């Protein structure tokens, strides 16, 4: 087996980080519009997007844009805005943790390659 610098796992993690960033971006957009009359919260199905991204990695396809959807089941205020502070706060924390997990795993993956490069100098 030969050593690869760009592994399948690092490709998968790249897509994972992209999706975590998308989730954080949507949350930031919702948070920014917390007082905009008539604004409706937008979201994405992280699991479905992730599944599709994994298939994309296996088939060697380039990443495709995230499908956005309106969030159901939120209570709208009288001004028509339905952004929930709790939901957005939780989503942001979740996106942040996902991102940090992805970074930690990616770091480990590159560290392994680095160890292989430096193995003769030890």
């Amino acid at each position, binding site marked *: 087996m030969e050593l690869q610098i760009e592994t399948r796992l690092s490709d998968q993690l790249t897509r994972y980080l992209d999706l975590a960033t998308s989730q954080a971006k949507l949350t930031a957009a919702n948070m920014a519009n917390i007082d905009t009359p008539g604004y409706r919260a937008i979201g994405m199905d992280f699991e479905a997007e992730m599944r599709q991204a994994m298939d994309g990695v296996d088939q060697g396809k380039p990443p495709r844009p995230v499908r956005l959807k*309106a969030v159901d089941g939120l209570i709208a205020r009288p001004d028509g805005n339905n952004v929930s502070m709790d939901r957005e*706060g939780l989503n*942001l924390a979740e996106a942040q943790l996902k991102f940090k997990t992805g970074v930690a795993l990616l770091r480990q993956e590159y560290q392994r390659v680095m160890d292989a490069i430096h193995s003769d100098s030890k």
Partner: protein
Amino acid sequence: MNLFGLMDTSGGAMQAERMRAEVVAANMANAETTHTAAGGPYKRQHVIFSASQGDPGFLDSLATASGAASAATGLQSSGLSGAGAVAPGVQITGVVEDTAPPLVRYDPGHPDAGPDGLVAYPDINPLTEMVDLMGATRAYGLNSSAVQAEKGMITAALEIAKS
């Protein structure tokens, strides 16, 4: 995917909320102002927020979302037919004057009193202003914690490059 774009969104929102707080402060400061450059008493000001266009890449993915049947119905049911209706970021479209009539008090000794001895005062309710200020403060804090989270993500991404 650009992590710094996130900070623009949250930073823009913080700027907008600060503007809102400034307008509230101006309203409270001028609660008793009977004389302005335009003539008449001070008029209460409001800021108007609207969702801004955001970056084109985001709109592209939104267009894809509208193309998918399930997402399109979801967006339409929530009253979002056009792509411009949902976009990241918020902007202040304008600051408008309240149209409410001024409060009239009898004070014949006042220099701005009319011939009938009545003085027009701005119709400013400190309670309404305080509630608005509280909303602005909370929203500012919410967006500032989002900036904090984004900073954490960028710092974490920089960790990849460290050995």
